[in-house]
């Protein structure tokens, strides 16, 4: 019943079952890891791993139809990750709203004794490095760019926190991720409505993804800090 073209090598066809087993085993290991870990941010990252296992199983089919299935699968996975991180952001915002001082207290010092460093470079350099990272991220654009730009945001937040200044980045991150959603969806829609503007829609989607990944990496940094403080 299933039509396999004669020019497909035998090795490719025999690779199907191992690929499915690999996907299921990866999913099983990832769920085991989720059962062991208790920190929320680790669970979120490990859940992404289960999503990757899903891509394994779907792409093992290896036909045109399966290729058409991988893209929606990826998009769904991405959208779910974004929705969950959005939930986390909202929850953190509520927590800060209820107790504004919770964001500022319980900082752990790097040095064993009270120690003051009064140097110009300690206040200016982190901002500069953060700016360079964000700029470089925008230049790269897309997923890696988002990661670099997110690293810049985290550096900025941590350096502000280290100086004892209030960190109120969450509001900004939530706003930016909203814009990113719109850019991404408009870019995606334009692909279907007007395929001749594919360069524009590609750039829209890439910029949206950049902002989105940046905000997600920023969120990971902020939550990591909270987890470290919890210890």
């Amino acid at each position, binding site marked *: 019943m299933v039509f396999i073209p004669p020019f497909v090598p035998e090795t490719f066809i025999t690779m199907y079952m191992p690929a499915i087993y690999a996907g299921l085993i990866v999913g099983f290991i990832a769920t085991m890891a989720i059962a062991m870990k208790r920190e929320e941010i680790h669970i979120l990252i490990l859940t992404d791993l289960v999503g990757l296992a899903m891509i394994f199983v779907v792409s093992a089919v290896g036909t045109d139809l399966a290729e058409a299935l991988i893209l929606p699968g990826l998009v769904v*996975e991405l959208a779910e990750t974004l929705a969950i991180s959005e939930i986390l952001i*909202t929850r953190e915002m509520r927590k800060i709203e209820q107790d504004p001082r919770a964001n500022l207290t319980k900082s752990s010092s790097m040095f064993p004794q009270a120690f003051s460093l009064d140097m110009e470079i300690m206040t200016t350099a982190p901002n500069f490095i953060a700016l360079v990272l964000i700029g470089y991220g925008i230049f790269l654009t897309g997923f890696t760019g988002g990661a670099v730009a997110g690293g810049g945001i985290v550096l900025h937040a941590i350096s502000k926190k280290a100086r004892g200044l209030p960190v109120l980045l969450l509001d900004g991150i939530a706003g930016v991720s909203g814009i990113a959603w719109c850019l991404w969806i408009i870019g995606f829609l334009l692909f279907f409505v007007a395929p001749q503007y594919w360069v524009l829609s590609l750039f829209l989607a890439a910029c949206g993804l950049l902002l989105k990944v940046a905000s997600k990496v920023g969120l990971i940094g902020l939550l990591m800090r909270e987890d470290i403080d919890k210890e």
Partner: protein
Amino acid sequence: MDFVTLGGNLLGTIPLGDIVLYVNPFNLFLFAVLLGFTALIAVSKPETQVEAAKFNTLDNAQVKVDEKEFRQRRFLSVICGIASAGAMITGDLFNFTLFMALVGILNIGIVSAVKQTSVLNSAFNYGLIAMMCSLPLFGGASIILASTGTLSLAVLSQMHASPMVVFGAILMLIGILGESGVAPFFASKAEMFRTPGSPFIVIIHLSSLFIIVRAVEILLLVLW
């Protein structure tokens, strides 16, 4: 099993290229009910509701929701209703899984702006379960595709089920259970209802209920 045996007389088919939508009284009824409920949601006014007083506390703390949040919630509920209506009428296995995943995302979205941290906590946990269950859901559909070569339900219902198809269908069932948050996974979803806004919150419940009914039909079509 033939879909005529399951859903009554075939009222007609809508061929859209490779995907053939079939219309029978069973599908049409589910579709119409969901669309009607969605229309009810769309016309309901987002007036401020005061509900969900905290239990087990002496102070009678009431939870208020402002109108802006209600508007957003109504918008997402309408989309959720349309997505689950699409899952009722679709004639394609993979479209069904996609609608299913979309409903899962929208369920999280409806409660995403809620102020209670307990509701957000349970929404987070439900989201994690939904994400993990996308592996069996999409994996099962792709295994069925690999072993039969088609995703059209009209073609699948005529085929004899091989062991691989049965395995794929079982995986899909696990995925559907997790994604709609029923049976073993309801612990995470039940807490999501503890927030004011009756007509909009109910769609979370209703969509998963209807999708389970439709999933039973689809699994029967594939297996017999």
